[in-house]
């Protein structure tokens, strides 16, 4: 008992200047200026720990998983399944059977639409919101075309937050699936997902949460949320591209038909009939992205060492600083998305200067932002803009990055307005 009391609990890291040094990509010059990387909502950089884990996997352990009896395959399998357990703990799933590896959020959503969606029929409804990324719209449109179900869209308010009254009114006995972003990639709006899930469950609908933009910024507990499905990508949480996760409640996944057929997802195959493997392998046809998943596991380890409460406060301070400075100092600037509950995304337009021109000019100052429709054309339509400029923050960003963004934007104003 004494040993337990005296057990060393590692201090969670909150020195963001020190953490920034873990990211080699952030140490470079771009156009002769230090890189200010503010495109984290599109893809985030990886720490050395992730890069090393992937290099080690490729260099020493490369082999296939789940079927070799030789040493390298044993190591690969242990690393791959070890990453699954890390992810399970990270999102507090009750079992590794509920953690399916995919190529990314998009594939996770497509999996649910294709497999769970087979239960939908004419007269059923899929309820989404007006702030969704294309990847949480199009799979449901395709499902509706196939099944005869109807796609219903809950509108958003002028500040970019979800119209909760309209959501409530649209939710009903016909609603079979609710698919909603945890955090909007285009506006930064944080949706009250726990509340939405609770309401959806009361009408018997299942809920898929697109967590791509939430996982890098906040601790997600899928059991506390009580979501039925939760989808996210490795490359937005400091891991590699080509990795993603679909969390699904075990009972739902058990009942769902396979998504793709192939190796790994079967128990037995004959020309008359095949039987399918247990969860989560039933949904993992073919050789997976082993090295990528090992990198994702390393990214989870890295994030587990950081104090997320401090991350939220740090990113919020950056967002506030950037929002205020853009509005105060950049003439003609207007924010798109001003919901009271926002995370890490600053979307804006500047009168008379197209977002692409802003993007090119700030890039000349070493500042990386995203410009365009952010794969959310309906959101752009809703706000009557063709495109926005978007700065998105991660814990490794600092005040200097924000200041540099302002310098770049002022340069654009100078070029365009002389």
């Amino acid at each position: 008992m004494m040993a337990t009391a005296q057990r060393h609990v590692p201090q969670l890291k909150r020195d963001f200047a020190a953490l920034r040094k873990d990211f080699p990509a952030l140490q470079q010059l771009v156009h002769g200026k230090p890189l200010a990387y503010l495109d984290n909502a599109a893809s985030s950089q990886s720490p050395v720990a992730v890069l090393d884990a992937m290099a080690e996997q490729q260099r020493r352990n490369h082999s296939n998983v789940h079927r070799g009896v030789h040493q390298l395959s044993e190591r690969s399998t242990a690393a791959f399944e070890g990453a699954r357990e890390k992810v399970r703990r990270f999102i507090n799933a009750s079992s590794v059977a509920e953690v399916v590896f995919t190529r990314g959020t998009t594939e996770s959503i497509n999996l649910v639409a294709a497999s769970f969606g087979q239960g939908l029929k004419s007269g059923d409804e899929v309820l989404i919101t007006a702030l969704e990324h294309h990847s949480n719209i199009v799979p449901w449109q395709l499902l509706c075309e196939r099944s005869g179900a109807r796609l219903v869209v809950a509108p958003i308010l002028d500040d970019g937050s979800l119209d909760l009254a309209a959501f409530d009114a649209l939710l009903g006995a016909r609603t079979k699936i609710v698919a909603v972003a945890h955090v909007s990639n285009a506006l930064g709006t944080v949706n009250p997902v726990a509340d939405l899930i609770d309401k959806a469950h009361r009408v018997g609908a299942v809920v898929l949460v697109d967590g791509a933009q939430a996982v890098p910024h906040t601790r997600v507990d899928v059991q506390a949320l009580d979501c039925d499905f939760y989808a996210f990508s490795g490359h937005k949480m400091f891991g590699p591209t080509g990795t993603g996760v679909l969390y699904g409640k075990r009972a739902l996944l058990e009942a769902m038909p396979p998504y793709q057929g192939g190796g790994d997802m079967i128990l037995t195959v004959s020309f008359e009939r095949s039987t399918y493997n247990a969860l989560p392998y039933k949904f993992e046809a073919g050789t997976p992205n082993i090295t990528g998943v090992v990198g994702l596991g390393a990214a989870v380890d890295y994030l587990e060492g950081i104090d997320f409460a401090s991350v939220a406060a740090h990113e919020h301070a950056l967002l506030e600083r950037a929002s205020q400075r853009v509005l105060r100092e950049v003439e003609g600037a207007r924010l798109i998305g001003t919901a009271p509950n926002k995370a890490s995304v600053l979307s804006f337009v500047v009168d008379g200067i197209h977002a692409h021109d802003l993007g090119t000019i700030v890039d000349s100052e070493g500042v990386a932002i995203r410009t365009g429709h952010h794969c959310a054309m309906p959101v752009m339509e809703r706000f009557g803009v063709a495109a926005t400029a978007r700065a998105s923050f991660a814990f490794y960003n600092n005040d200097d990055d924000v200041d540099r963004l302002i310098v770049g934007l002022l340069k654009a104003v100078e070029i365009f307005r002389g």
Partner: protein
Amino acid sequence: MDELQELYRQVILDHNRNPRNFGELPDATRVVAGVNPLCGDKMTLYVKLGEGKIQDIRFQGTGCAISVASSSLMTERVKGASVDAALELFDKVHELLTAAHDHEPAPDLDKLAALGGVREYPSRVKCASLGWHALKSAVADEGKSNVTTE
């Protein structure tokens, strides 16, 4: 001149601020919608063809400075030109936008040579070429009504 100044020359900024031949053309014989799926930019090109010539031409839509200026400069240049001359010009501009950067622009490009600044910015080449693809499609025999930069 640095690359950025090369991209945003005064003539580009001027045509972006005050695009020429901007608006609808009610008696157009060809209307082509151009889309750049990368950025969601949309433009519509109106062309009135007659006697093998571009009798009149206008465009409207939203886009970045490069895209608007390129379309504006294009309409200014090809208005009144023969279809053959317009197609020949398309080829020269295409070469200008995509050639290696030590390439000398064709001498008769005049103001259009200002578009050459995009060569240092591969992601912006499509912005500069959208209007031109719409033009080619409008005057070519098949007269497709939609073009994209993809």
